[in-house]
């Protein structure tokens, strides 16, 4: 098998075949033109560089594409939950510096891009716990990580017990939030999903300081931020051009009231 290429190739490969990829009327070259000249999408290299994939998503890609090359269907993997689409939403919440000790944290995700054409089959919250520098003096034992609703402070039934004595190294805590997630995603669902995290010592209701346990979000890199991972199964075969259409649409939206660029787009469409 060949390992998946994550690192950009050093330069364009040409003359590999007898036919140029730009040959023919059905070449997607025109899509490239639309893309490149769409305001809001120009300078997408900068945009792409600002989006850093989490290791978990890279790992999913590597595993499933390697399985594909061996002729295995990725949906056979238990971890995939029979999904063929896995989306990661990065946490937009911030810790309030004034709160010390930090008893609760709000994790906020913008899930507005979830498509109603896909059947959702699972969701999990992945939070990086980085032990503080004075980890040796931090309390050890079993802790309950629990999620509650931001709006009602009601438990969402998602909790996990962690033995901190064994976890001095950074580790991703994974909470299955599927039950909570599906109950909140009605046809009129909000584009924001907000959950509050708190940690208690086992057999006690005392809420612990999240900073001392390694949940401090200050100064974290993009790939260290918590992610909501949503597993979905497409109900019908989708083609790549759906993604392109979505992007063009979003670019139009981001243009706002720039009327002159609207004229440019119309002119481009006429030319096409």
């Amino acid at each position, binding site marked *: 098998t060949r390992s*998946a290429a994550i690192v950009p190739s050093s330069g364009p490969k040409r003359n590999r075949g007898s036919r140029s990829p730009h040959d023919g009327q059905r070449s997607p070259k025109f899509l490239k033109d639309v893309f490149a000249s769409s305001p809001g999408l120009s300078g997408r290299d900068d945009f792409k560089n600002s989006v850093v*994939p989490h290791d978990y998503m890279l790992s*999913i890609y590597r595993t499933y594409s390697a399985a*594909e090359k061996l002729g295995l269907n990725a949906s056979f993997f238990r971890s995939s939950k029979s999904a063929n689409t*896995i989306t990661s939403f990065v946490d937009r919440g911030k810790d309030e510096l004034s709160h010390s000790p930090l008893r609760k944290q709000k994790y906020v995700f913008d899930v507005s891009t979830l498509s109603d054409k896909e059947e959702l089959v699972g969701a999990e919250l992945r939070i990086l716990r980085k032990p503080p520098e004075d980890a040796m003096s931090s309390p050890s034992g079993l802790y309950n990580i629990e999620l509650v609703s931001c709006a009602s402070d009601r438990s969402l039934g998602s909790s996990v017990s962690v033995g901190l004595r064994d976890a001095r190294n950074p580790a991703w805590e994974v909470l299955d939030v599927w039950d909570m997630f599906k109950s909140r995603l009605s046809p009129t669902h909000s584009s924001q999903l907000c959950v509050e995290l708190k940690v208690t010592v086992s057999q006690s209701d005392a809420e612990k300081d999240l900073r001392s346990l390694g949940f401090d979000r200050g100064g974290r890199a993009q790939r260290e931020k918590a992610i909501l991972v949503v597993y979905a199964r497409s109900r019908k075969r989708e083609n790549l051009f759906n993604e392109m259409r979505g992007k063009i649409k979003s670019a139009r939206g981001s243009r706002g009231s720039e009327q002159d660029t609207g004229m440019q787009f119309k002119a481009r469409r006429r030319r096409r």
Partner: protein
Amino acid sequence: TALSSRHGKRHGKKSKSRCSRKALHVNFKELGWDDWIIAPLDYEAYHCEGMCDFPLRSHLEPTNHAIIQTLMNSMDPNSTPPSCCVPTKLSPISILYIDSGNNVVYKQYEDMVVEQCGCR
């Protein structure tokens, strides 16, 4: 004939090979799609090329209609074109990309690689 003459071949000579799978290396960077596709940056898609002429071989898995069309073409090329050499079996590939909301998405896209060609 038109294709043969474009490639500088002599008229009348059967220069095109039979329908089969040929290499087609797709480079998303060259397509300008590397601004939203994270990985892979390229892959082998293959394509189908060649003639579907009489007699059709069984490995091309022709439909009954393709057999009839090919027969008609062999009898009178002016009345009926030959059947088409097209993908008859395709397989998916995994793509990691950035969606319109800046989220990183893994998706398995169906029908991205030609596994088998046939006459239809």
